[in-house]
């Protein structure tokens, strides 16, 4: 999206896209501001994207949130800050590299201790006039909303929703604070300090506004998830929390496990007994789960594994983002067995792919992975609908007969999966090599037959069903940009901004296994650019193994931050002649 702020001293006009950044210490109440802002703006008919970066601490430090308000759908992180609200003295130094002469800084000058020009709005004093300094966040939110010409009644309603549980008096005071802020904002707009002339679309008011965590959780539940066992770990805990919050409505078994080893072994036990289970973790927790991945492969018991990636190795950067665990997911678990790895890059894909993961796991009796990351999980965006009513829940449990054999050799490698207590047969699974009945064997002939069934035949069937990548942009491309998962939003917006007719984006949502035919799509281009939010180009290696194709250029980032649209545009300009 082009920079549309017309620089004129401190007077700015925004016509289709504006980025607001709020920054301060953890515990300063950024959350309240963001909730009030995003909800009110979206209800007013603006497209909203919100993301945040935070330090691994409960209080203090400096965090920031970026809210993009736009007249069209946006879901990517941008470097540009149009309006900055610093809540304390740490904010401006924290963001100094992103502040330019075009950045409008609004806020309490005393608190921000700014050494650069800013428009002073004494949020703290306005709040004190209303009785308490705690209202300053709502004053700040109101001020920003005033710039957009928000209807006061709508803000009142949002504040009632936000503070309703705290009693009438608190609601009343916050409404006063919101209105005082609105007046300040309107005055700034009138004075021409900032003019926002975005055109709202009333349809947006009825759209969904959710983050990757929620979209993933919804996909799990719509996919029939009725059991989750996990150990909390950032950034993947949110999925466990979301499903736990819904569990009462849907009767889902929630088990906060003592460790990740317990979690995945419980997940497998649940599937064995007929449930549809998932586990959610990050790379470090997944490291403990790998024995269970291998067990899933051996006993052909399905499991859905969500890895919310964060930078490693080891504890790494606990609250930051990276696509660094793809190789680990693909190669995890001892022995040879098939698996599927999916990676959503849009909110809707998060729901659709997580839903599908349950069907695929059940159908092929294998581990199916969903790979996301901190940026994706914590970022909110508008989305018209998830259309889950169109997604089938496919179940493959069979009623057993007296002579049931769990590992019956079949032409496609898939043995009908019975569960204990459903039919007259016995369901016997063993982590040792086993015969068709599930009993231990060391027979070479049986071993060979089982490897052929479990790996060779099933892998072929799985590959046939692989989700192909999607071509975004020009159909007549000479440059193809390859990306997967959460980089989707930044790459898509960057190539749109690039405005070239000869560039396309090949967006992968299934990252393993890949069909060799993908090579034909890539070969049409003279130039392949790989974009990955990791240090070594992990997907590039998988692509090379499957297709023999090697990227001409790699754009890699492993600083802990997501790609910005601007840096990708710049890199593309440099690499596309």
């Amino acid at each position, binding site marked *: 999206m082009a920079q549309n702020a017309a620089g004129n001293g401190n007077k700015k006009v925004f016509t289709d896209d504006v980025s607001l950044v709020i920054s301060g210490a953890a515990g300063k109440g950024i959350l309240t501001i963001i909730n009030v802002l995003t909800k009110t703006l979206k209800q007013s008919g603006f497209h909203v994207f919100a993301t945040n970066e935070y330090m691994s601490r409960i209080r203090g430090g400096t965090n920031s949130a970026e809210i993009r308000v736009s007249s069209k759908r946006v879901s990517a992180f941008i470097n540009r800050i149009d309006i900055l609200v610093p809540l304390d003295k740490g904010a401006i130094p924290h963001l100094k590299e992103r502040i330019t002469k075009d950045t409008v800084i609004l806020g309490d000058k005393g608190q921000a201790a700014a050494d650069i020009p800013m428009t002073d709005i004494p949020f703290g004093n306005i709040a004190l006039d209303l009785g308490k300094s705690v209202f300053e966040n709502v004053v700040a939110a109101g001020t920003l909303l005033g710039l957009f010409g928000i209807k006061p009644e709508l803000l009142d309603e949002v504040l009632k929703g936000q503070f309703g549980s705290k009693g009438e008096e608190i609601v009343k005071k916050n409404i006063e604070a919101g209105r005082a802020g609105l007046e300040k904002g309107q005055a700034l707009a009138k004075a021409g300090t900032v003019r926002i002339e975005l055109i709202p679309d009333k349809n947006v008011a009825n759209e969904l506004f959710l983050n990757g965590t929620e979209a993933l959780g919804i996909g799990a539940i719509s996919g029939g998830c009725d059991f989750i*066992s996990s150990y909390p770990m950032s950034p993947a805990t949110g999925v466990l929390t979301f499903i736990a919050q819904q569990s009462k409505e849907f009767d889902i078994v929630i088990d906060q496990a003592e460790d990740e080893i317990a979690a995945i072994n419980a997940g497998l036990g*649940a599937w064995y007994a007929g449930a549809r289970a998932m586990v959610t973790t990050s790379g470090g927790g997944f490291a403990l789960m790998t024995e269970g991945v291998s067990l899933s492969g051996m006993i052909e018991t399905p499991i859905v594994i969500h890895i919310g990636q964060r930078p490693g190795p080891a504890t790494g950067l606990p609250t930051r983002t990276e696509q660094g665990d793809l190789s680990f997911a693909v190669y995890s678990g001892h022995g040879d067995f098939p698996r599927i790895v999916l990676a959503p890059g849009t909110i809707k894909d998060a729901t659709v792919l997580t839903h599908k993961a349950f069907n695929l796991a059940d159908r092929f009796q294998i581990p199916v992975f969903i790979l996301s990351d901190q940026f994706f999980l914590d970022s909110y965006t508008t989305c018209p609908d998830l259309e889950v009513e169109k997604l089938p829940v496919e179940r493959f449990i069979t009623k057993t007969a007296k002579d049931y054999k769990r590992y019956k050799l079949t032409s496609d490698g898939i043995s009908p999966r019975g569960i204990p207590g459903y039919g007259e047969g016995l369901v*016997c699974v063993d982590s040792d090599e086993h015969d068709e009945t599930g009993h231990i064997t060391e027979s070479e002939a049986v071993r060979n037959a089982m490897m052929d069934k479990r790996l060779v035949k099933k892998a072929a069937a799985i590959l046939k069903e692989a989700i192909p990548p999607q071509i975004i942009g020009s159909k007549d491309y000479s440059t193809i940009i390859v990306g997967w998962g959460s980089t989707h939003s930044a790459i898509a917006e960057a190539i749109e901004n690039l405005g070239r007719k000869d560039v396309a984006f090949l967006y992968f949502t299934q990252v393993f296994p890949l069909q060799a035919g993908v090579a034909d799509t890539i070969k049409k281009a003279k130039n392949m650019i790989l974009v990955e939010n990791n240090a070594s180009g992990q997907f590039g290696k998988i692509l090379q193994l499957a297709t023999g194709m090697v990227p001409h250029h790699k754009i890699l980032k492993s600083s802990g931050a997501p790609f910005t649209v601007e840096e990708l545009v710049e890199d593309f300009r440099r690499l596309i002649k």
Partner: protein
Amino acid sequence: MGKEDFDMGAIDIAWCPGCGDFAILNALKEALGELGKKPENTVIISGIGQAAKTPHYLKCNFFNGLHGRTLSPAMAVKASNPELDVVITTGDGDMYGEGGNHFLHAIRRNTNITVLICNNMVYGLTKGQASPTSEKGFKTPIQYKGVILEPFNPMSVAIALDASFVARANCGDLQQTKEIIKKAIQHKGFALVDIFQPCVVYNKVNTYPWFKQHTYNLDERYDPSDKKEAFMKALEMDKMPLGIIYLSREKKTFEENIGVYDRSNDPLFKRKHDIKKIMKMIDNKRLHAAQSEMGSLIG
């Protein structure tokens, strides 16, 4: 209806002649048979080790998983389908060593399962190293000067965690072992039975006669509901008590506490989520002004 329902007929059993596991297998089959249990409704979960092979030798559903990981799948099976009878058969290494952390937390959950630990105080399958329950001074090729670690006392740990049923048996007494297993299966809640069992190949110290000399039966006057007294019993080392050492006050099981069976007793595989409720959950994300719930934006 009886023990024969669980018999596999003439099968090859991988245990050494004279192994205590044979007695425990028999006791388990008799217990299940006498209680009128059915193989197709019984799930045996086991890990790795000789005792973990038990489910291969009787008719039942089984999940012979990974080393030390019996308790997590057992919880999950019972929570997914409470109509199944879930029994763990495994050894001291699997449960108290590799699975030690799970042991602590499984007791806290109080899933309604029966946990049978064949405790021979040695690692058999890996050929004779110390186990968590090996006595101090016990010599092995690795602990050649003798074990220097304090032995793990599963009874006192289980009582400390308020396990709902804590018992100990000696497989040398088949009748008593069977009776204790029966009570454990009938008990509602987490039932632990530590069963003394000699390893005839790798443990030349803790033999059939040794266990007989170092144990005694709790008499009928003993009250297992007295926690302090149970602790005292669990700490007796020279002669160790056999029988039900501790019974907690009746408490809810994990399956009861999770609420999933409040509205229906159907196991999970018979259910599906209501699409109308799913659509409502999604509609909540339209964030109409009056809705307060938005989740957390900042982690």
